């Protein structure tokens, strides 16, 4: 069952590599022309095409590209002429730091608020939380980031509006660099997670076995923690994984706004300079990460719910 899910994900990843590669075929003109500029001689163009294997049929180029990807050879950036892996490594680390910090902040907080909202369903607190989360879910990330910059950087002067500084000499600097982007990302991710957690716990609390436990006189705290929660864990972990996949989209906008030197920022720059090897690699990384999160959400859901194993 789990092997089937993983196999399905790998198949999807393979199809994706086809899609991503097909994009490069769609792009008008070819890379050799782009590299040599307008006044290139036909001989130079032909030579470079041969050197870059652009004269081979597309399926051969696809196989070569895929093989390189699997061996960790990511190709060379068209613009900077540096190997993609050299460009990518520090950026990937920076993005992982940002994502990791965001996850560390938002997951516990979102679970707490989601469960609280479900337990106090219909209360003022619940309604406030659900209004706030609807608001955040239905607003683009850059609006949230813009408002936060307006409040914390412009009006209150607490934090810098950009976080491009890489000076981590003291804790103070680290806090100044990360607070704003992490806060914005956490807002976006948490809104999702709270809504889904609340829905999952509400479902569990509505079930007849919880009703029975309640009639038996089980105290509220044990009712929620001991009876309802274990059965809601599957959906909750599912919600966490799905929300973290939202992080992958949100991180693009946030890195651009705060000028944070991460992978997504690199991607946006690559798109504006049409640096194809770079675009392809980053797109594959993001899609693979996304697939991994979604697949692990599926697997956890199967592990936590024996009924799903026999479907």
């Amino acid at each position, binding site marked *: 069952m789990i092997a089937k899910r993983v196999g399905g994900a790998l198949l999807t*990843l393979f199809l994706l590599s086809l*899609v991503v590669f097909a994009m490069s075929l769609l792009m*008008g003109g070819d890379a050799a022309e782009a590299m040599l500029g307008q006044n290139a001689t036909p001989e130079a163009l032909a030579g470079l095409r041969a050197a870059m294997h652009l004269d081979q049929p597309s399926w051969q180029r696809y196989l070569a590209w895929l093989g390189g990807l699997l061996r960790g050879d990511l190709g060379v950036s068209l613009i900077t002429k540096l190997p993609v892996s050299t460009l990518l490594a520090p950026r990937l680390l920076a993005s992982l730091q940002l994502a990791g910090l965001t996850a560390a902040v938002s997951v516990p907080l979102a679970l707490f608020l989601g469960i609280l909202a479900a337990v106090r369903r219909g209360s003022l607190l619940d309604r406030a939380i659900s209004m706030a989360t*609807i608001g955040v879910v239905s607003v683009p990330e850059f609006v949230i980031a813009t408002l936060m910059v307006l409040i914390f950087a412009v009006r209150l002067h607490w934090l810098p509006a950009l976080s491009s500084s890489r000076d981590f000499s003291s804790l103070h600097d680290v806090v100044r660099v990360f607070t704003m982007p992490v806060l914005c990302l956490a807002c976006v991710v948490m809104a*999702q997670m709270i809504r*889904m957690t609340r829905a999952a716990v509400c479902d569990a609390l509505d079930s007849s076995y919880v009703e029975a436990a309640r009639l038996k006189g089980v105290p509220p705290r044990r009712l929620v923690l001991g009876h309802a929660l274990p059965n809601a864990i599957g959906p909750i972990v599912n919600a966490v994984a799905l929300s973290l996949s939202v992080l992958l*989209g949100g991180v693009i*906008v946030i890195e*651009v706004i705060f000028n944070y030197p991460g992978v997504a920022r690199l991607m946006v720059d690559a798109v504006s300079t049409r640096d194809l090897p770079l675009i392809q690699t980053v797109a594959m990384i993001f899609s693979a990460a996304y697939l991994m999160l979604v697949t692990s959400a599926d697997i956890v859901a199967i592990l936590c719910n024996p009924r799903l194993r026999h479907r």
Partner: protein
Amino acid sequence: MNTVPKSGVAHEAQALKIRRRRFNVSLLLGGTTIIFWLIVALVGPMVAPHAPGQVVDLDVFSPASSALPLGSDYLGRDVLSRMLIASRFTVSIALLATLLAATVGVFCGLLAASSGWIDAIFSKLFDTLSAVPSLMFGLVVIGSLGASIPVLIGTLATVYSPGAFRTSRALARNIAVLDFVTVARARGETLSYIVLREILPNLVGPLAADFGLRFVFVTLLLSGLSFLGLGVQPPNADLGALVRENIAGLGFGAAAVLVPTFAIASLTIGMNMVIDAVSGGRRAGGRR
């Protein structure tokens, strides 16, 4: 509803009343907002006081005055006129893209629900599409095809057709096994008759809600792309592009950046309120 075991009949009745009142308020508020933006998109450019590209103010980011009700932007252009044009771009591109996504998604979804091998192919295809994070997909497509309005509409529609496909497929599968469809099959009706006349009419309600939700997602992604400079290109602008070009005015709280920001928020929140009110507010959040 009964979290408190001792909740009496009176309590239930009151809860119902509160719910009904909230239903009406959010429907009214959200509906008014949506209709307002539709009217702005329709007639806005005709009543704009200035041409959108015309520099009318020597000062940049000047505050609102009687001559310029929303002040001027980073080049001294009239923000009100630019807002009126931009909302037409945002609303029309988002509507067209949603329509395209819904048509493709629902058509394929209905086909998939009525035939086994088509289902297998389409499901895998749309699953693959939805495995790319939506903004990343937009970046790749626009990176290789260049930013133009047809490409933009196509990209947005491609990103959100898998969602429409999955919804309509799930709904149609439930209906395809009902008795009246079996009867129609036994009568020897053609596939197109069964799909269009027997199944589709039963999906109109849920699909309308799904359409609204998808419109919100499309608007969000469109604004995001434009904000990154990959959406509507100058001299034209949509709401996201307005935020992008005037972001320097954020420091002094210029209307040029705040008004489009709140415009996007009101459009999407308004739509969400309508959907929430209509579908009973039991929808769990989801951005895709």
